[in-house]
């Protein structure tokens, strides 16, 4: 009798220890049909939800709004810096139909998922000056012809290159094709000062950055990852040409061996340390690489150009954030006004003064004062005008995981690029099927 009870207690105890394993899963209920478009009623306090603001400009913008609208104050809810953590908290808020989060700052690639799940409302397009924004950027905010968010910032990839080395090697213009880039590298590498340098690098670690780089390569070779309906097109010669550019570059040493561990910061450090002739990078690196305090060895020795492609200028992916309105939120009339205010040209100009980013308004790329601070702006505009947003599918998480799996296997030589693309095509057909 005694032993049995002890055993029972012990077993129960073992069970309790095991139970802690089952905590990661939340619950989810069904969402009610989304509110009919056009019913944006109610005024009062709302919240603005975004990742941690490292520049300090967001609160300044909110303060200005709050001063003008004392009865419709906006509170800044700061989420973690990690985008996955932000997305998860936003989804949780939407799934429990909470009104805690009103206006969401969505990563451009989440917009489709949030719209398809009806976690965010369809917005009246005529309320916003979308015509003055760059078209590819507006594209990231739409789903099936409807506007679900308003672009607040954007981001596009550019080719950073060493002006000093190119000039010394007798090259006048930065390359526009991959072949030109490789030829330029061969010339530059003959220079004594280019000893030990690698030709090119992007972000090839197995993470979101790899999807960006692979999508850019495929698009720059004239291919498509997924079409407007979410169907994959990776079994094409163009897609193969795109992936092959990266695979061959890794194999023939065009990119350094360790580039398959590079995220943005690793690639930036390599470029700033003078290890690379060319690098694919976002605009945020520009002011950092131009710093004359000794942290960058390439200050004053680099320039930017649109990304190269197979037969001509390539196509960048797009980053950036769009403002969306939570379907379960209150005071939607205020929220709509606030989205309009936050994304307006004046506020973008203000934020840009303190932190490098890509504005969404075409006019800001020509603004003389801004161009003086950020000489990359005209190049960035060209890059964004040619940009193709990353695949817009409602299961973006699965898509990017599949792309990373296939591309990384090809980059590390585990699979041939043909096999990797074949597997990817099959993997994407299944989860994305409607």
């Amino acid at each position: 009798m005694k032993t049995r009870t002890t055993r029972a207690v012990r077993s129960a105890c073992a069970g309790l220890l095991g139970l802690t394993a089952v905590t990661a899963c939340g619950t989810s209920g069904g969402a009610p049909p989304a509110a009919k478009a056009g019913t944006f009623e109610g005024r009062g306090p709302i919240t603005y939800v975004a990742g941690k603001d490292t520049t300090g400009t967001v609160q300044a913008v909110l303060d200005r709004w709050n001063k003008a609208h004392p009865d419709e104050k906006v509170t800044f809810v700061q989420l973690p810096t990690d985008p996955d953590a932000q997305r998860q908290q936003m989804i949780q808020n939407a799934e429990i139909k909470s009104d805690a989060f009103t206006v969401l700052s969505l990563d451009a690639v989440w917009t489709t998922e949030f719209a398809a799940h009806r976690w965010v409302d369809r917005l009246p397009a005529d309320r916003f000056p979308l015509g003055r924004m760059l078209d590819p950027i507006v594209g990231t905010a739409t789903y099936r012809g409807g506007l679900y968010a308003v672009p607040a910032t954007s981001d596009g990839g550019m080719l950073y290159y060493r002006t000093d080395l190119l000039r010394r090697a007798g090259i006048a213009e930065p390359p526009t094709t991959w072949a030109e880039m490789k030829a330029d590298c061969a010339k530059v590498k003959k220079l004594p000062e280019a000893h030990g340098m690698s030709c090119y690098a992007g972000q090839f670690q197995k993470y979101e950055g790899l999807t960006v780089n692979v999508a850019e390569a495929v698009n720059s070779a004239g291919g498509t990852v997924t079409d407007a309906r979410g169907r994959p097109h990776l079994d094409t010669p163009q897609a193969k040409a795109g992936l092959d550019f990266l695979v061959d570059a890794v194999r023939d040493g065009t990119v350094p061996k360790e580039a398959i561990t590079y995220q943005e910061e690793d690639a930036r450090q390599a470029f700033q340390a003078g290890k690379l002739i060319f690098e694919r990078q976002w605009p945020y690196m520009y002011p950092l690489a131009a710093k004359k305090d000794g942290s960058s060895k390439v200050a004053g020795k680099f320039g930017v150009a649109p990304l190269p492609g197979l037969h001509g200028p390539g196509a960048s992916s797009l980053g950036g954030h769009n403002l969306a309105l939570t379907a379960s939120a209150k005071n939607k009339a205020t929220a709509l006004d606030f989205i309009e205010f936050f994304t307006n040209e004046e506020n973008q100009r203000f934020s840009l003064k303190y932190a490098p980013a890509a504005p969404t308004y075409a006019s800001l790329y020509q603004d003389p004062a801004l161009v003086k601070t950020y000489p990359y702006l005209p190049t960035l505009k060209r890059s964004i005008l040619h940009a193709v947003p990353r695949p817009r599918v409602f299961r973006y998480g699965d898509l990017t995981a599949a792309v990373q799996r296939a591309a990384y296997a090809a980059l590390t030589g585990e699979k041939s690029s043909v096999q990797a693309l074949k597997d990817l095509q099959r993997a994407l057909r299944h989860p994305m099927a409607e």
Partner: protein
Amino acid sequence: MAETQTPARPAPPAARSERPTAPARRRRPPRATAGTARLAALLVSPTLLVLGVVVLYPTIVALQQSLYGTRRLDPKTGFVEDSEPFVGLQNFAAIFDEAGSRFWNAFWNTTFLTVTTVLLETLIGVAMALIMHRAFRGRALVRASILIPWAIPTAVTGLLWRWIFHSDGIANALIGHQVLWTTEGFHAKVAVIVADVWKTAPFVGLLVLAGLQVIPDEVYEAARIDGAGVLRRFRHITLPLVKPALLVAVLFRTLDALRMFDLPYILIGAQKTSVETLSMLAQDQAANVRFGPASAYAVLLFVYVFLIALAFVRLLGADIVGDDGKSARRRRRLPRRPQGVAA
């Protein structure tokens, strides 16, 4: 296991000392009256309530959730369905079909990482405990410094080791050969094992140290008089007497290692097949709004962890409940009757 190997020697105190003292000890307190029983029930009810809310309820919800599938997209409207379809045990059956390869990969990764890390941590932890147990100058400092890795949050450990295992990091500088630790492959597993052992061996060390400290010096003294050498004393006195503490340490480490998540996630990366554990798989499903499969994986992990815990308790007799406090009391009385051990 150890008990059968040492039949004559330092007799596990629990078994030996029971008989002579039994009559006196066995007398139970006066039978509880209905009133005190009610009071007792009342007094434990808050605990039970809290356990029910934080342990039982989430478990039941997870079980229920694991029976639901994934919401589909309605091709006509372009919107995702409102509710998740009931799929019964399909999420569990899925591990046996084509898509199940990811589950089994995660399962073997989890098992491999658990076995290797716990083994290494036990060996190193015991060695640490023996060192910390020694009386020498600066012992307090050594004890404190050994515990530092354990005190560092795992996420920080992950970042720290990511720098160490960086392509230009110190690990490569030391071995004089460039290994890309954070890429796919066996080296990624090695990186996780090294970081995890570094972090949690001190935990084993600490628990074993506590076990060592209750072994009375007289036992060793008597053994030394009987001519037992260092190794013999370790095998026949230290190990059997420290076994209860050691088993608890190993059990806790095993259960912890089976749920490993943050270290591979941060050190190597979220999408790396080489180090994807069951927890990471469940998290990935949940993050992609597939709560059904996520719950199913979590439940499977729970069952796995539960079975292992049960095996420990049943087969190895790990004393996680403190055995109603009796053996602990007896152990404390031991010093007064050392002849029972030295016999």
